[in-house]
């Protein structure tokens, strides 16, 4: 398994645990009142589980499993893959930060732009790997 995939998959496991714990806190709050501020976790729970867990795991697994190039680096430019990882995770952190704190700057917009950059890089890295090696 290549290093970028290992990073993305491990990060996704951390996000999964974080997301489940947040969800559990909100569920317990429905049974026994903890604090009204607990609902601030809802948008973070959604961001962490969808982008951090599901999307990050699928991107990391696709980078590992899709057909490799027969010539040159087997998965293309690995530096771009690292930029994709940093960009996706910065995006998640920016969106979460915007939910938690009120900034003068639009952190959520910056976060979504980072996430868009990561997805764009994912497409660039994988477009030519969607092939078949069969000749007939």
């Amino acid at each position, binding site marked *: 398994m290549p290093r970028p995939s*290992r990073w993305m998959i491990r990060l996704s*496991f951390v996000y999964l645990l974080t997301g489940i714990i947040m969800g559990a806190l909100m569920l317990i709050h429905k049974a026994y009142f903890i604090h009204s501020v607990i609902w601030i976790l809802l948008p973070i729970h959604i961001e962490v589980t969808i982008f951090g867990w599901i999307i990050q795991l699928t991107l990391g697994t696709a980078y590992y499993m899709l057909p490799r190039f027969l010539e040159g680096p087997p998965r293309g430019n690995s530096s771009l893959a690292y930029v994709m990882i940093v960009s996706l995770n910065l995006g998640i952190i920016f969106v979460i930060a915007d939910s938690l704190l009120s900034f003068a700057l639009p952190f959520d917009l910056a976060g979504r732009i980072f996430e868009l950059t990561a997805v764009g890089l994912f497409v660039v890295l994988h477009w030519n790997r969607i092939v078949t090696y069969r000749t007939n």
Partner: protein
Amino acid sequence: MPFVSRTFVKAGMIYFVLSLIAGVLLEIDAVSLPALMPLFWHMLMVGWITQIIMGVSIWMFPGRNREEGFANQKWSWLTLILLNLGLVLRLVAEPAVGYSEAHIWSVLLVASAVLQVAGGLTYFIEMWPRIMSKKQQRKKRKRRRES
């Protein structure tokens, strides 16, 4: 495909159907069930998507123990049991908490939360050591053969 993965995927398919039934009910104004919206989303995202990811990753990621049985795949089986028990308890207890003041529903809802966290933890324990490079995989295989 190991038995535990097949069970994950089949359980996932059941939740997929149930979630879409909930989705249909949400669109019918005459039907008003408590907590239907969070149940719809969690049957879809935890019951279906997360379970199919877990089942397939347990099967496809490197380092799987190919011996069948609970003892050989205990973390995977525990994940399946804890997650599904937690989710089923939620399906029952979350609407009931809205309807009834009986203390038992609150206790079951807390149990559901704890079970799902435990399920996430056992998945983490199963999968974390399996995320390795080819070199690490070869070393692990060599160690297994030697022992």
